[in-house]
């Protein structure tokens, strides 16, 4: 682990009766979850069961969608992310997010793609920027590949590199928790493996939540797994059916739907 990204104190997330809505429509039945510090929690389930929706509630990105709102609470340690008058931008600084598609800010260089969060926070000192960018790129296992071309447009990188650049950008602002929404679904197996190794390293510094469609991936890297399904009684609504240690879920699932889902996919 690099020294530039100093390990931060452990932070846990707690979801209490979390109910995300799109307009009037409830997207997921009330969720209660405990995501312990410095662990990787995987969220799995069939398409449309609300994995992304729940994930986006954890850094208040959900409400960036017009008409979307949330009931219930999410605690970061013991602080309510949904307390009244709390600016969501402050939450998002503490809970970072990496998206499904690798996203680079198209008009910026590699360096500026990593530095953007610091610039928002008003950091202008060159030395501090340089050190943090390098630290974040090292932590994202990208430094050696890009150190010669930091001033090139970020669009020049490959998909896998762009995804690690996204991770570096998120690390650079030193969040407590990082959310990953299917970070490998657009990548080839080798790039995927690199990201997985990276996640295992990052776990020492951050609390990690990852949505994935890939059962093996969940089994390989996560400490615990939350399984969501679609409740078809009435309007399709997501529902949390099981949450346990990953080893437990994959060997002896407590819910028959989980078993069907895992065996159907893993075959």
């Amino acid at each position, binding site marked *: 682990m690099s020294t530039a990204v100093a390990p931060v104190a452990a932070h846990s997330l707690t979801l209490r009766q979390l109910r995300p809505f799109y307009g009037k429509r409830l997207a997921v039945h009330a969720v209660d979850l405990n995501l312990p510090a410095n662990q990787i929690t995987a969220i799995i389930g069939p398409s449309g069961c609300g994995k992304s929706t729940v994930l986006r509630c954890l850094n208040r990105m959900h409400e*960036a969608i017009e008409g979307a709102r949330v009931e219930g609470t999410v605690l970061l340690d013991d602080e309510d992310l949904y307390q009244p008058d709390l600016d969501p931008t402050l939450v*998002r600084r503490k809970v970072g997010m990496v998206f499904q598609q690798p*996203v680079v*800010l*198209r*008009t910026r260089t590699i360096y500026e793609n990593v530095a953007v*969060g610091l610039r*928002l926070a008003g950091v202008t000192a060159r030395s501090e920027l340089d050190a943090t960018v390098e630290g974040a790129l090292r932590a994202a296992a990208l430094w050696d590949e890009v150190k010669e071309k930091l001033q090139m447009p970020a669009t020049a990188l490959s998909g896998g590199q762009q995804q690690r650049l996204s991770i570096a*950008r*998120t690390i650079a602002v030193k969040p407590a928790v990082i959310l990953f929404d299917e970070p490998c679904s657009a990548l080839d197996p080798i790039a995927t493996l690199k990201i997985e190794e990276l996640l295992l390293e990052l776990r020492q510094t951050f609390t990690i939540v990852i949505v994935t469609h890939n059962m093996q991936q969940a089994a390989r890297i996560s400490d615990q797994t939350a399984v969501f399904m679609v409740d078809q009684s009435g309007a399709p609504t997501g529902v949390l059916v099981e949450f346990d240690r990953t080893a437990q879920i994959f060997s002896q699932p407590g819910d028959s739907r989980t078993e069907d889902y895992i065996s159907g996919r893993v075959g």
Partner: protein
Amino acid sequence: MATTSERPVALGNAWTRWFRHGDGLFAAIVALFSVLVVGLVFAVGVVTYLGSAEARAQFGAGFFTGIDWNPIETSIQAVTFGAWPAVRGTLLTSLIAVTLAAPVGIGIGIYLSELCPRSIRQPLSFMVELLAAIPSVIYGLWGVLVLLPFFTDVLANPIADSLGTIIPALAQPVGTGRGIIATGMILALMILPTISAITRDVLAVVPNTQREVMLALGATRWEVIWGAVLPYSRAGIVGGIMLGLGRALGETMAAVMIVGNTARISDSWFQPATTAASQIASELTNATSPLHESALIYLALTLFAITLTLNLAARILVAQLSRGAASSRF
């Protein structure tokens, strides 16, 4: 649909053959009309070029820097045509228009595309587009009868009495208010819809992921716009401004009714002046000599060349971004 295939069979042989092989002819006919459209543009260029031959031969490029425009010989001055008053008036009014309209138009585009509630987006867009649909003579009428009195009392005179004492361009006399600044303001209003609609359209094609990345880093809504959305669509916005500029340069009615139609150069921008378009509109039908006519046509040729260049550049910029989404509208 069945008749479509059976009808030719039922008809005579010649017709059938023609029916079957009509495609070549059809293609030729529609292509011919396309060629005609292309030809129209050439015609505009050629006709104004030939029509201005006399003036071009007599004045050459010096036409644009000549400061005297004297269609009628007097005891003190010979007949001569210098376009500088018109060129200056056109440039100043258009630049004032773009300076005023660009920030406002971009702001409208941002509000429509990024910030306004979805329920009022459509009606608001429509209202802004209506501004473009109002005939320009009505802008002129409203400008003369409503804006000018207001402008002289509330803006022009106070400014001329304060700032005007330091800056010659804003100095008295304001007079009736007819002049470069009033014209620039009306032109600004007229090009607002062009700039705002193009801004809105090019912002709409910015991928949402660019916004979400910034948001997820804890950026405010404005920082998302400033840091990700605007840089991404910069070329398209510049293109929109250029199209607006093109429209301002060639706009005739508002200018002819408000600028004062005086081919004279005054220090104060509140004073009557002229623009190329308004000079053509107000003088061509009663030109005093073939040279006078030719000089006015020379102005038209210049306007055409400038707007053609601007349009070409702007459309390349806009098309680069939106791949045709916004380009066909204007």
